[in-house]
């Protein structure tokens, strides 16, 4: 499989601040790729250099085999971009917005309307974009990014400022776009989003890529213990300590918390103790990976 994006040693400095520091990565064609990190990690700047919006101070970004800097007008119809914050024309309706963007790419109004339908905004077509909700606005931005059927799609924080239900809808939309064979690159500061959506994730902090792998591999590589939360009346701390495979036990007041690297074995024992009622199992998440990598708890 070919690479949709190749990034080699990208660097961007603003004054004293190294916004992006020697970032290298590749995104395969058809992949859903996530760049994860807290605000100010350099995600957006990295993305903007890959898109060809900013000149790198060092390094190179190639998109579909071609360098993105300087501005390469032949490349632009092949990529779709949704930028952070709503990049729309003033006071136009949803339909007028997407038709205007369609016209910039020589795409017919009919196809623009089809896209509006596809993202579920057909009934909001005549609503002015400044009166749409956060989720609707993001969907409109995604539709505007996709109206010319690009091969590679960049989404900068596609679920920022969106309520949880609308967020799930957006995830479904993005999965559908990816399933059609498009390469999707998205930045997010939500760990669960990267975990739920992305084939591979680059974790960024302070302008550097700390780790790049599939979410599962990242968690596995962490070798973090599984945490089992048992209801306090089901099992005592002493009973839990006695179980083979259990590493630590503590009573946090709400539950007896066991940690283990052999969860199936421990769970089988707990089942024998008939202590499964109200039991919760929590595997390590990207959150733990981030904590492990940076030594500080993740805060978006």
């Amino acid at each position, binding site marked *: 499989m070919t690479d949709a994006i190749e990034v080699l040693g990208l660097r961007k400095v603003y004054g004293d601040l190294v916004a992006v520091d020697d970032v290298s990565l590749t995104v395969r064609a058809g992949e859903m790729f996530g760049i994860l990190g807290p605000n100010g990690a350099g995600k957006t700047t990295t993305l903007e250099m890959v898109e060809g919006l900013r000149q790198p101070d060092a390094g190179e970004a190639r998109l579909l085999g071609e360098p993105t800097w300087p501005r390469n007008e032949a490349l632009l119809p092949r990529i779709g971009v949704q930028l952070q914050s*709503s990049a*729309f*024309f003033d006071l136009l309706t949803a339909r007028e917005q997407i038709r205007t963007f369609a016209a*910039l790419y020589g795409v017919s109004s009919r196809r623009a309307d089809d896209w509006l339908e*596809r993202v*579920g905004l057909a009934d909001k077509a005549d609503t002015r974009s400044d009166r749409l909700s956060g989720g609707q606005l993001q969907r409109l931005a995604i539709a505007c990014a*996709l109206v010319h059927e690009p091969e590679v799609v960049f989404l900068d924080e596609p679920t920022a400022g969106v309520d949880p239900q609308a967020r799930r809808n957006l995830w479904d939309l993005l*999965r559908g776009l990816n399933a059609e064979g498009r390469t999707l690159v998205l930045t997010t500061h939500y760990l669960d989003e990267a975990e739920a959506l992305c084939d591979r994730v680059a974790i960024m902090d302070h302008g550097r890529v700390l780790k790049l792998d599939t979410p599962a591999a990242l968690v596995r590589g962490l070798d973090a213990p599984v945490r089992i939360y048992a209801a306090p009346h089901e099992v005592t701390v002493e009973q839990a300590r006695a179980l083979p495979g259990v590493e630590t036990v503590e009573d946090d007041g709400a539950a007896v918390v066991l940690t283990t690297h052999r969860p199936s074995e421990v769970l089988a024992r707990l089942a024998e103790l008939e202590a499964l009622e109200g039991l919760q199992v929590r595997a390590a998440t990207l959150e733990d990976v981030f904590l492990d990598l940076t030594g500080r708890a993740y805060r978006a």
Partner: protein
Amino acid sequence: MSTPGTSTPGTSTPGTSTPGTSTKRSDPTEQRSSAFAALAVAIVKGFVRDKASVFFAIVFPLMFLVLFGGIFDVDESPRIELVQVGEVPLFAQLPDGAREAFEETFEVTREADLDEALALVRTGDADAAVRMDSDTLVAHYTQADQVKAAVTQGTLRAFVDGANIAVSGSPPRFAFASERVEDESLQAIQFVTPGLLGWAVAMSASFGAAATLQGWRNSKLLRRLQLAPVSPRTVVAARVLVTVLIALVQMAIFLGLGIVAFGLRLTGWWWVGVPLLVVGTLTFMSVGLLAGAVAKTQEGAVNLANFMVLPMAFLSGSFFPLEGAPSWLQVVSWGLPLRHLNEGMLDLMVRGQGPGSAVLPLAVLAGFALVLTVVAARLFRWDDA
């Protein structure tokens, strides 16, 4: 309505075909013109739907026009047409003040033959025929228009009386002074229309450019357009076209209202004011670009543009004539682009000057536009860092 992402593939569903191959790319020229048209339409809609921008571009300056036009508004009656037969020394010897009044009341044509003159009066082509019968001024008139007839008689009698007193050599005991209000009204509307139009165009051009540049930068629309296959030239051209169209609409409304409601009279070369106004629009777009490049918010950009344009309007004679202004102010005034725009428009539209009078304003305005655009380009940023 289908849930996003779950819509089943079908012929009408976008995105179901292989990405990148399904869109037929139209030929580049066609695509460029469709992009240009779409951008222009989007900008026009944005302008028309923004009540504030319409208000400041059209309604607000019109309020001033109505105010100035209305204050001095008196119906102006057309001049009385006199046919003069032979020499009338009385007319030739009028003192200066009286001559002015006379010329504003009467339009005098000459006719050698009395019968022909009378025929003109009879057919209504002239209001009265006058001749001298030794020392008597004889006026021939019809009663077709009684008001005009009375005015003609009364006015001519007054001139004769005045001449008699002048001849007698003794100073008149009673004096009569009149303020010719309608004359001032004429001057006011003549003066005020081009100046207010200049101000209105300066406002809408600079506000539009400032708000577009800053607003589009702020919303990252500039960035978004940078990633669309349209050249910056196309984007700029669309914005310029819309601003020029708005300026022409302003001109049409101002001149139309001035002529219909306030008796504005345009002189021969007024239409040379159209290209002058277009170049002036570009100049004030560049003022707006400067404001938009510097300001941090859209409101800030518009306010900054206003901060430059409003004082300039005062100093450039948009609201009141600068003839009586101190000389230092005159000097400052000629350093401002709006003064050149206003003077050029006044010369062409109401002072009856030829197209040559547009050359200097055009050159000055184009110079300002060039310099300001270069400065704005230097200060240009793609986004608010």
